[in-house]
């Protein structure tokens, strides 16, 4: 589904705007990263997409339809939102029930719920844990449960707030696999993250926010080249980009493979 934001302004009561005139377009099936330091407005923007927050001015359209009169309950079937802290979400005594919570609320048929839950659990290697109490698991396992419960909602749009925080490399591989599956299913995915190495490898397009304003919207390559932009957003260059910049490669590399290709191309 296509998302279109036009001139969104948002402020808490009388304060300075947390979001200041934000416009953007995201196509169906696109994977986009939303970056910026804490307090830049990323999470606030995410909460606008499913109606948790309503803009003071501007419009949000999903598939051409304005969402300002749609209820959160209805929008939750279209946009699923992963919260940073899994403990803000987990409410059930069994992992399986937890993952089924969203689909049940959306009143999916029994059979479909079973399939969705099983698939999502499998994506994060949680099938062996499906009968556990989520709070008996470790933090990163709970994070995986939360991710699975969002993906099980089978919405066309997903917003993931800091999906990698607290995860180890093996778990990040699971997440990468899940993102691939979502791409195959043609889902739109918006990732909010501080993890620049993760973004460099997986997300082609980034939107940078700073002080509630959109500072950049374009290819991740260009964003990471722009030192002043990174400084404004409080971000560090990913490792490979740093190498690539140091060796003045004309087309900055994002992955080790790209870096080596650039190197060899220039050697020729």
């Amino acid at each position, binding site marked *: 589904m296509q998302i279109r934001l036009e001139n969104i302004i948002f402020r808490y009561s009388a304060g300075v705007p947390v979001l200041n005139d934000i416009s953007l377009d995201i196509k169906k099936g696109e994977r986009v990263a939303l970056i910026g330091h804490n307090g830049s407005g990323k999470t606030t923007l995410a909460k606008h997409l499913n109606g948790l927050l309503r803009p003071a001015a501007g419009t949000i359209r999903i598939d051409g339809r304005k969402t300002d009169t749609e209820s959160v309950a209805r929008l939750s079937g279209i946009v699923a939102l992963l919260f940073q802290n899994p403990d803000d979400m987990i409410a059930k005594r069994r992992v399986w029930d937890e993952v089924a919570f969203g689909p049940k609320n959306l009143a999916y048929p029994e059979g479909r719920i079973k399939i969705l839950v099983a698939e999502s659990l499998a994506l994060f290697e949680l099938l062996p844990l499906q009968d556990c109490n989520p*709070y008996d698991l470790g933090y990163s396992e709970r994070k995986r449960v939360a991710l699975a419960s969002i993906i099980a909602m089978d919405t066309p749009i997903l917003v993931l707030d800091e999906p990698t925080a607290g995860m180890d490399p093996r778990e990040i591989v699971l997440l990468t696999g899940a993102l691939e599956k979502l791409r195959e299913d043609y889902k739109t995915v918006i990732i909010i993250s501080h993890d620049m190495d993760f973004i460099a490898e997986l997300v082609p397009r980034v939107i940078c926010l700073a002080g509630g304003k959109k500072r950049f919207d374009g290819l991740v390559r260009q964003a990471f080249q722009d030192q002043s932009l990174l400084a404004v957003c409080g971000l560090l260059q990913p490792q490979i980009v740093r190498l690539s910049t140091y060796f003045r490669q004309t087309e900055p590399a994002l992955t080790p493979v790209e870096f080596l290709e650039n190197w060899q191309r220039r050697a020729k």
Partner: protein
Amino acid sequence: MARPEILKSKFSSVTLALIAFAIVLNMATGQLVSLLKLPIFLDSIGTILVGILAGPIAGGLTGLLTNLLWGLISSPVAAAFAPVAMVIGVIAGLCARYGLFKTCWLAIISGLIITVFNAIVAVPIRLYMFGGITGSGADFITAYTLALGKDLFGSVVITVFTSNLLDKVATALLAWSIVKALPERTANRLSRVKSATT
């Protein structure tokens, strides 16, 4: 410096943290109830939880301190009802000790018992300090029963009982379901959980 260190010897730091959290829970759940537009207060959920998890003394302390702190935060009027909140915690603790939080139905019975004791303490305070009126919606019940010809005492008893019945039963049920959902490692830290629920 020679005060008896009853509290220190009695409560571990886990119990302390539990009580502190429960006090905050009591104070904050009003926010949830108003969102859901439910006709209950839920302001003793933390007190009842501590009663179940850490016993009657800890439960009583939770209730007492909740209302005293309410006095600092909203209005000193709340502090006048501190003894009521304390009794709720003590009774919840005793109910749990005698196995009245083992099943859903027993939890409802605990809720009823708590309502009764709540009334025993709340009625005199309401009657002697406030002349039977507290400036809340429950006053309509008092007015109605007075109009029916009941005396003030009878009216206040009916008011306190009816306005608390649903709240205390709902709170007891909620507390029971939470204790049931406790993860094993927490249940293990709070030694009373197993004896209270199985």
